[in-house]
């Protein structure tokens, strides 16, 4: 049962990752919609659990294997760091919108680190700032919807 649960959550996260890439292939605007990043931050801030480490790790390995040209494990580590960082910030400070903005800004910075390292600042800065607010809006909406449903 535990194995099945891990497989299901890993598959769900990998599909989210795939959908995120599809959405961003369609969008040719100066921002990205990072639904997978949002789900990682949601895991970190709302449902942080040690049992989720394996599904995140597996979805990262799948992403690294199929869609990334970097070495295996890079995106896996990035996904895990995003979850840890978002949980750390939310546990240490109060749950205000400012903290959520800071959390999403830092997590997005880590999430986009391969691009930030390889490209100059003109390439990513504008889209980075726009993406923060677009994804913050999505994150807060998702949080509110899920809270109402619960």
């Amino acid at each position, binding site marked *: 049962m535990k194995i099945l649960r891990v497989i299901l959550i890993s598959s769900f996260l990998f599909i989210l990752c795939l959908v995120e890439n599809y959405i961003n292939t369609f969008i040719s605007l100066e921002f990205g919609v990072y639904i997978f990043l949002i789900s990682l931050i949601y895991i970190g801030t709302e449902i942080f659990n040690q049992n989720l480490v394996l599904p995140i790790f597996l979805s990262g390995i799948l992403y690294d294997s199929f869609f990334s040209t970097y070495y*295996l*494990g890079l995106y896996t580590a990035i996904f895990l760091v995003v979850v840890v960082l978002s949980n750390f910030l939310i546990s240490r400070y109060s749950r205000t919108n400012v903290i959520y903005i800071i959390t999403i800004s830092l997590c997005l910075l880590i999430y986009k680190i391969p691009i930030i390292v390889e490209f*100059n600042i003109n390439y990513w800065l504008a889209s980075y700032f726009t993406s923060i607010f677009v994804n913050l809006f999505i994150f807060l909406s998702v949080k509110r919807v899920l809270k109402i449903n619960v």
Partner: protein
Amino acid sequence: MQSSQVDGIRKYIVYFLFIFLSGLLSVVDYFSNKTLSSFIPDRVNLISNFQISDRLLQNEFSNLFSSRADLVAENIRLKEELTNLRVLYVENQELQNNIDFYNDLVNNISDFELTYYATSLILKNSTDEYLISGGRNYNFEPGDLVINETGYVVGYLGEVFNDYSILESFNSTNFNFRALDQNNNVFEVNSNGKELIFSSLESTVSSKVSILYSDITFGHISKFPLIDLEPYEQTKLNNKFTVTVPINEMLTFQSKLFIPKSK
């Protein structure tokens, strides 16, 4: 207070262990020349597995209707026929598109000794690299040129898997290309994501540079135009040319792409 702080750190231990494991995998992958990262893609046909089978399209839906066949037989027959016609219509549209793609290409290329495999965009990954259909199943290899319907080079294959490949396009982080001008001067092309930077490797360039071409001396399959540099400002420093060209066009799902291979 102190106990809650310790608890706070403890809850991350498993995460830190897995981050360490990821780092370890990266190191092993680095020293094994990416054997580890290509292990799964080499064994799984990811793209083919997502295709909807023709059987499903043609029969399964009609089977749903056939349960009512006893009641309205004629209606069912017409529905089946309609389904088949729809499948044929989609197939016909795809073939028509392919013919259009190849017609455009034939008007713009001169080398008919090669086979041109039509390929299409699948998605763009987090580092702005494009995944395109076709891989080892078509004998594609890393470094193979990718051209558009006008016969111009749009990139080359960075990595090739079973049924898909990663395209290093102009706005890719790893884009690095060599090309020749009409006087056989060598140019190196790099990208910063928003601009292409062309630098001559020789100091003999005298006149204004126009069209750059791929060449077999760099391992390319044939001579294909890359870009016409004439409209852009060309700076000359120590007898070396540098041209910066903004990248305006992005690849879309409608982009027509071809990979030339020898027959």
